[in-house]
């Protein structure tokens, strides 16, 4: 249970965090994704966020489904236990894992196919149960790994590489999450590390289900003109509604005070998420208003980004289920097995 030194050689010049680890220590194996794939940028943001949050890698459980996006947990935190599960089924694995051991940090990585088609039910129900995890939906509008079919997040009229137009209306994970009562809903862009890193940190710190929907262009199958999930389109139509800053509990340095209309939300663990609304009056703690604003932007062809909604004191799975504070996996057998006396007593009634 103790954090130990990494066997690998340290570059003395590399910056270390509170645990004495370098950012390198938060990396994984070499990516096998296409050069330029949005997912790789997200991986880099994840590495940075975990490093900066001083989380011991082996106290992290990283999970995914199946897809290019779902491959990425191999590419970060090689000292975390990983689970590359089945297509669309990561939420249930994460739920059971979290039920058994709520004291690890959970990060799930999924794709739009994985979460919105085959996995839609599990995705929604994990949100409903408010499983304490960061859920990264790497959203590229296509099925990358099976070579570019439209996913359920593809917009109407989006053109495939070979020219067909998508006709089916899209499922927007962010507005769906708001509707379903999710306690943390954010959207970002793989190309915007500055925005993404604090969102990941806030999501990891949030006690409950934290959805980060990230537009993550697929350079091979969906980065052309006519796609609404391309780099160009996202850069042009992404619209930050709120700037977010994450201030960890033990942050020694005073955060800059020059925020404009900045508001702050205190998280379960005492860390602070600080907002500066870009869109006037945007209030990321008002679910219905957030929804309405999202929809308004959407009608204008704009994609709202930032921490769209947060309910920092929501009750997570363990609170809903009233489980003990200790992880269930650590409860000794003696506390679990009632023993022979109880058995005899019980059976005295079964006559």
């Amino acid at each position, binding site marked *: 249970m103790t954090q130990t030194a990494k066997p690998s050689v340290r570059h003395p010049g590399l910056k270390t965090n509170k645990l004495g680890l370098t950012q390198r220590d938060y990396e994984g194996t070499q990516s096998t994704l296409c050069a330029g794939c949005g997912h790789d940028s997200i991986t880099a943001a994840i590495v940075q966020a975990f490093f900066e949050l001083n989380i*011991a890698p082996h106290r992290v459980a990283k999970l995914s489904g199946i897809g290019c996006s779902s491959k990425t947990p191999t590419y970060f935190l090689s000292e975390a*236990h990983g689970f*590359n599960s089945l297509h669309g089924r990561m939420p249930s694995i994460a739920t059971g*894992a979290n*039920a058994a051991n709520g004291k690890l940090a959970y990060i799930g990585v999924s794709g739009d196919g994985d979460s919105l088609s085959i996995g839609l039910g599990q995705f929604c129900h994990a949100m409903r149960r408010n499983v304490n995890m960061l859920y990264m939906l790497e959203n590229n509008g296509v099925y990358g790994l099976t070579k570019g079919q439209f996913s359920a997040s593809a917009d109407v009229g989006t053109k495939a590489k070979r020219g067909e137009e998508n006709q089916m209306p899209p499922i927007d994970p962010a507005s769906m999450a708001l509707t379903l009562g999710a306690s943390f809903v954010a959207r970002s862009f793989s190309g915007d590390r500055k925005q993404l890193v604090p969102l990941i940190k806030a999501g990891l710190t949030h006690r409950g289900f934290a959805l980060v929907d990230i537009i993550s262009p697929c350079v091979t199958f969906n980065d052309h003109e006519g796609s609404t999930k391309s780099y160009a389109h996202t850069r042009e139509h992404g619209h930050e509604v709120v700037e977010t800053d994450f201030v960890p509990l033990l942050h020694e340095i005073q955060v800059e005070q020059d925020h404009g209309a900045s508001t702050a939300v205190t998280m379960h663990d005492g860390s602070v998420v600080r907002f500066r609304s870009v869109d006037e009056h945007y209030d990321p703690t008002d679910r219905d208003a957030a929804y309405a604003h999202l929809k308004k932007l959407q009608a204008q062809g704009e994609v709202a980004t930032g921490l769209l909604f947060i309910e920092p004191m929501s009750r997570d799975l363990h609170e809903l289920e009233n489980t*003990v504070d200790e992880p269930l996996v650590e409860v000794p057998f003696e506390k679990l097995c*009632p023993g022979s006396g109880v058995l005899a007593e019980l059976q005295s009634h079964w006559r």
Partner: protein
Amino acid sequence: MDQNSRDRTNDFVVKIATVNGTGSASANGMLMQAMFRMGVPVSGKNVFPSNIQGLPTWYEIRVNKHGHLARSPNVDLMVAMNPKTYEQDIAEVRPGDAVLFDSSWPLEEELFRADVLFLGIPLSHMCVENFEGARARILMKNIAYVGAVAALLSIDLEVLEEMLEEKFSAKQHLMDSNNVAIRLGYDYAKEHFDGLLRVRIEAMDANRDSVLMTGNMAAALGCVYAGATVGAWYPITPATSLMDAFRGFCADLRKDPETGKNLYCIIQAEDELAAIGMVLGAGWMGARAFTPTSGAGLSLMNEFLGLAYYAEIPAVIFDVQRAGPSTGMPTRTQQGDFFTVAFASHGDTKHVLLFPGDPTECFYFAVKAFDLAERFQTPVFVVSDLDIGMNDWVCEKLEWDDAFVPDRGKVLSAEDLQEMDHFYRYLDVDGDGIPARSLPGVDPKGAYFTRGSGHDRFGRYTEDGDLYQDVVDRIARKIEGAAEALPPPEVRLANDATVGLVTVGSCRGAVLEAIELLAEDGMALDFLRITGFPFSSAVEEFLLSHDLNIVVEQNRDGQLKRLLMLETAVPKKKLASVLDYRGSPLGADVVVQGVRNQLGLVAVEAG
């Protein structure tokens, strides 16, 4: 033997026909329980429809001093409380037997039979006179017929009254009305029909070491004792009551004494795909986790079961079988899932199965299942059925050894890991096909990647055929190795028998009874009950040592026989089948007839 010349004291069947949703189930249970308390071997089988209220339902109580408690079709007393089924219920009664009915309304002329004793009691009228309110009248009518049956069969009224006292001690008015109702039926029957029946009950002392349990209760309790902490499920008949019971036990036995918080987590999943996923997630973390399900749920778990097999994740699945295929008859029993569980999921797979034969074994096999799942790092199925799972069985009292230590298998602690040069998740270091496993969060050195895609013995992703083969071959070896770790089969040998009767699960009682009946006719048969899969060498030896093995099971396709064909060295011609898959618990009559047919014998009573 002639039915009429037998002494039928403590040897008879009562069948009660009612309407579901009217409270008759608990009344019937009371009747059965009273007989149990009189120390007489008894069994009760509930035949209920797949709906909530208003349809015909039956309850069959068999009393047998010799302890033969399989279902028997020979009804001695029909308690016909449902006019909608009068016709079929009365037709079922054999000449000389009796029908108890509610004579508040006259029985239609054409239903009467001259060769049957009709015992009419104006139950409804009596209840209308004695009780207020429609619901109470319906409920008390049930209690009244219990009283009447008690009188007819000489059930000790005190026993019944004592049971009412236990049940309603806190609710005096309920106790009063129940007592009145019991008496109504009892007194009427005593007065009008005393001594009319050829069957009666007499106190014995056969149940001293027995309890009344359903298999699902016992299995749930087994999960508690095994230290299971995570249960995930989706409601489905006949598995639902297993999780209900687990929840009940946990609420009583698994609260943290200081905080009152739960030392368990039960999740009602959104479906069975999620339920098994949660079990795997918890198992991966190191918790003992399980899910109860039945046919349709199993089918939905298929993909995950293959992942668990290949990624080597412990899991316990209770398959409480019901009649398939598809939705089939959800409230009827069958043993039709053997192939599904043995080879669940696409690709090459083989799973470890346990087959309890009664509720007692459900308890012990549940505990065993968790040990096996962790030891072999694979899903283990406890395969029971609706008959075992939902009916009340009189069975051996459970024992617990407080020295029990769960077998966690090769789980590495932080210290273990620290001592190793390298940890490789899928490396078999000692030749038993079982690699060591680490748990998340324990130590950085234990980190590895769990996946259902191709991997080598070091846990690395691979698409190399040889490295891939290395792992799947080892897994095959590992599963074969489980055979001798499973509970041994039950074997009972006659003298010099050349034919064996082979069976499984809830068929046990009927087959043992059939063996006795056939022995009375001079036919010696050996008995083998399969308790696990892969089959142990004892199974193969038994089969090889007999000229013929007749496999008795409750499915259409002879699935157990086919598993034996596949997985033992026994020649196919040494295997034959007796099958009954109509959804009722098996009766000895079916087995006797089936064996006779197989052996080319004309039935003695035929023609």
